[in-house]
């Protein structure tokens, strides 16, 4: 068990800059999820911690040791790969014990460790089988077993659930969470799935084009996104952004669409981007003044909820309303915004604007 410290970590592939300098302190026993779309550098960052990619600049520390020039095997880490990377010709037992055998552990020691890991992961009946005789979920568990038996200081997960079907993914997500509670080992987990990220993480790292846009707890990232990018990436469906002009305590979208702002906000007049989550809008009750009128193009029925897609002041907008509200394509409901939950971003830089008050 150990903390992991990244200081100004950069990665260039020739002239291409993949990681622009990431600083991060992962506490002992913490579960960190690095989330972002493909190509944002999240896997590269993980592979640098693992030692599979060289570090161009900066330092990575595991425990108190700078590991920049240390081989992966010596870093006291274990990694779970997206495609499991099990040795196809070895049995489950051999797969799990391979690292221990190379390290020259005694037979008895290997036996206890493998049996214990197999018990935790419910793999005992399959120890003599080959990976190809197992289902996807079982293979994933073997991959985790291979990591557990080593008893490393840090677990690294590289999109471990993306090859599984939706149902199994939810189940394995829960198992990983339980495993972490049980073992308490520092874990770094990479995913592009924001639901996985939200549910698993103690803290989230939202990556955007080689930068860490925000590092914080799931609630923090959801409630106070640091940039429009984070706001748009975390939350499903994505946050709506409306360009507006703020003046005298009001947000003016167009000449006839004007929204009120929370009472305490004191922001300088100017052009802003207003973030509204689809779940922070509701249908106006009878007799209530609606903030907005939405021209619904498509209503997507999800069962419990309906997503209304439409346009307001020429900009795309999604609203999540309860299904029993009964809106359909081409309806025109009046909407009320939960004003207290508005997010304000700078129009140019996309950075969150502090709204003191």
């Amino acid at each position, binding site marked *: 068990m150990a903390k992991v410290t990244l200081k100004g970590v950069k990665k260039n592939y020739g002239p291409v800059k993949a990681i622009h300098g990431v600083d991060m302190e992962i506490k002992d026993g913490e579960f960190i999820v690095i989330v972002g779309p493909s190509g944002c550098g999240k896997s590269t960052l993980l592979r640098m911690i*693992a030692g*599979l990619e060289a570090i161009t600049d900066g330092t990575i520390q595991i425990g108190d040791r700078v590991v920049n020039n240390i081989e992966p095997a010596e870093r006291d880490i274990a*990694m779970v790969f*997206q495609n499991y*990377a*099990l*040795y196809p*010709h070895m049995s489950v037992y051999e797969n799990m014990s391979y*690292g221990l055998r190379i390290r020259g552990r005694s037979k008895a020691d290997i036996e206890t460790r493998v049996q214990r890991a197999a018990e935790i992961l419910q793999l005992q009946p399959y120890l003599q089988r080959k990976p190809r005789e197992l289902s996807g979920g079982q293979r994933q568990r073997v991959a985790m077993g291979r990591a557990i038996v080593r008893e490393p200081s840090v677990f690294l997960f590289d999109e471990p659930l993306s090859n599984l079907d939706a149902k199994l993914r939810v189940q394995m997500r829960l198992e990983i969470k339980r495993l972490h509670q049980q073992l308490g080992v520092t874990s770094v987990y990479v995913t592009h799935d924001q639901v996985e990220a939200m549910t698993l993480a103690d803290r989230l790292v939202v990556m955007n084009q080689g930068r860490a846009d925000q590092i914080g707890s799931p609630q923090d990232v959801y409630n106070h996104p640091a940039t429009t990018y984070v706001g748009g990436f975390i939350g499903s469906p994505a946050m709506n952004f409306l360009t507006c002009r703020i003046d005298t305590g009001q947000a003016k979208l167009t000449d006839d669409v004007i929204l009120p702002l929370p009472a305490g906000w004191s922001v300088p007049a100017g052009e802003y981007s207003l973030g509204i989550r689809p779940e922070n809008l509701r249908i106006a009750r009878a007799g209530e003044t609606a903030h907005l009128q939405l021209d619904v193009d498509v209503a997507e029925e999800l069962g419990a909820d309906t997503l209304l897609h439409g346009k307001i002041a020429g900009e795309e907008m999604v609203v999540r309303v309860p299904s029993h509200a009964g809106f359909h394509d081409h309806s025109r409901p009046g909407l009320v915004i939960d004003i207290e939950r508005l997010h304000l971003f700078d129009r140019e830089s996309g950075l969150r604007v502090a709204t003191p008050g």
Partner: protein
Amino acid sequence: MIERRPIADAVGHLIMLAAIFIVAFPIYLAVIAASHTIQDVSQTPMPLLPGAELLTNTARALFDGPQLVGVSGATPAIVLLMNSFIMAISIAVGKIIISLLSAFAIVYFRFPLRNIFFWMIFITLMLPVEVRIIPTYKIVADLGLLDTYTGLILPLIASATATFLFRQFFMTVPDELLEAARIDGAGPMRFFWDVLVPLSRTSIAAMFVIQFIYGWNQYLWPLLIASDYKYQTIVLAIGRLIRAPDAFYEWPVIMGMAVLALLPPVAVVVLMQRWFVKGLVETEK
């Protein structure tokens, strides 16, 4: 795809049967000839049904060798077979070892001029033994390796084909396996032995079959190197059996020897057929 074309099917089968007949009849004839006495075989037309002397004739070929006019002392087939065996197995095993290692280097290591080395190996695919036979002979002769097993085997071991095949196979092995092995603490050679070689076993089997037959059927190279009868291979010896015109030949014994020469490659193919086919059609990952 469902096809119902009875005439095309019939024609196709007919052509196939004719081809099989053309290929199989001479072999049948050889077996028949080996099963009669010399008097029977010398009749015209020669008998087309098996006789009773097969065991006697092959035993004579195996232990005495056919008596030839003008050639003093026959070499028994057992010596020739042994030479062929040593040569074919050494070539096949040597080629596999060398090719596995060079493919491993080319696929998994970044070293200067890596691509140039690969293309150099690849280009030798276009140069069969016959093209480079004079310089190779000169080198082997200068090294004093004429009439030795080393001289017979060594120059034939380098193999572009096998290197290429293993390279293609290694490139299909997912990178994550190497990375997992690195994290598990396996060095390059450990990874090679513990992961790559076991994964390549079907390809290795296919390569063994192909290269064993290649080695067994070598004619020109042993012809140059093995002037001493002790080092002659069976394929070479068969060629030498019938070189004198109008001589008296012990046809049944010669044919017995030909049949013996045929058996080991057939046995290798039959025994390794399952692996051989697997190695060529499927990539087990």
